[in-house]
């Protein structure tokens, strides 16, 4: 269920590496399902500098509110307006139309601190 080509953080965010040092960031299906219906997504603005594992925003569902933590350092290139305007897309497709940010990576070696899909699934099993 978690795409094998992505990297994952312990805070249940994912990273998709794109050409030119660009990374796409979102929350995992596990996170989206745990939250339930997402009603608000608060994200940083284009141009903001993020530091790996630092707070980058907030996500609220009907039942709860959580901080969002960036899995990588970098500069925000693009914010998914779809996710902020129609937050239900995060539930509908957390790995596709529900992506949150595109950033230019500061340091690609930070990817080493993230988990593969297999590792993330083992991590989830351990959580339960």
């Amino acid at each position: 269920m978690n795409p094998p080509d992505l990297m994952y953080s312990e805070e249940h965010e994912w990273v998709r590496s794109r050409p030119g040092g660009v990374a796409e960031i979102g929350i995992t299906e596990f996170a989206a399902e745990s939250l339930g219906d997402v009603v608000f997504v608060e994200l940083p603005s284009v141009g903001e500098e993020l530091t790996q594992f630092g707070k980058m925003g907030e996500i609220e569902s009907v039942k709860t509110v959580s901080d969002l933590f960036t899995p990588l350092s970098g500069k925000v290139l693009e914010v998914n307006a779809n996710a902020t305007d129609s937050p239900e897309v995060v539930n509908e497709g957390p790995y596709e139309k529900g992506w949150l940010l595109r950033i230019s990576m500061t340091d690609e070696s930070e990817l080493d601190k993230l988990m593969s899909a297999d590792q993330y699934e083992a991590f989830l099993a351990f959580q339960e």
Partner: protein
Amino acid sequence: MAAPDSLRRTSLFDIHVSLGGRMVPFAGWEMPVQYEGILAEARAVRSGAGLFDVSHMGRLEITGPGAAGFLERVLSVDVPGLRQWRARYNLICDEGGGIIDDCIVYRLGDERFLVIPNAANTDAVLEWFSKWDSGLDFELQNVTEATAMIAHQGPQASDMVAGLTPYDVTSLKMFAAAETEVAGVKALLARTGYTGEDGVELIVSADAAPTVWRALSEKGAVPCGLGSRDVLRLEAGLLLHGNDMDTSVNPYEAGLEKFVAPDRDRYAAGESLRRIRDQGVGRKLVGFILHGKGVPRHGYDIMDGPNRIGEVTSGSHSPTLDMSIGMGYVPTGYAAVGSRFQIDMRGRAVDAEVTTLPFYSRRKNA
């Protein structure tokens, strides 16, 4: 996640699991918080019909020649004046006027009543009742385990249930009840609910609950969990005990004075409530809408600039109104409709405005 063995299960537990319900601990019971999703379930109740297992709520039968006299001591409404086959919303208040619980009382006969306290408060209610039972000839039977309770709510609910019962559901008034059969099962059928929609609540034997649930599902009612129930009751301006009221607040602060008849000689909380009524209160429960992003939540501070003036008791995103709504206690000077204050949303001050309750009513918003 395995639930502790001590959690109780309703007779509909297996159905919830088979429907993919997400089971959570709630007031000592293992209950579904959602199936498809809270927002989808809330919409189903506003547009069609939903089905809630509310078997965790208490069911106390009070029978005997002293039953009415006993309830007159502990309930906030005129019990002898309650007609047979009628129900009333009311409060159970302590000696100081604090709210131990809110409940529905049904009169099923001259000497026969049914009281429905909240799941979390059933023990506290029983303890309070036991203090006021002396010298009266009645019997109190806790039938919570022996029975089940299903809330069937939504604009299409009464039509659906009408196809399953010989009783003329259209003649069943709001807050009226009848003993009849539903889906071939003996049932107490009442036109009550906690969603702000038309609908019924059914009390049947625990064994028979799955039959009734399946029959209503086949008519098109959507299974709904506690999550959507909480959103719907808040939209309808209905208070939740434990969130919006408890023994530290009285009915006048909570805006529930119309459900209180304090001028009754035998009423245990009467003296305190008369004094509170005559002296007035310093704070009031208000409903507010948020002018900004985010969801106000239980426990968030209500601010006037740098000053904390109160606390949010309930809050949610309202799918029906597409805005964020909440309730909380504020000093009476801030309680008028149109008053402004801010909610401290995790360090972010967001403007809020007092509005009339309910937020949603099926007449107003139809």
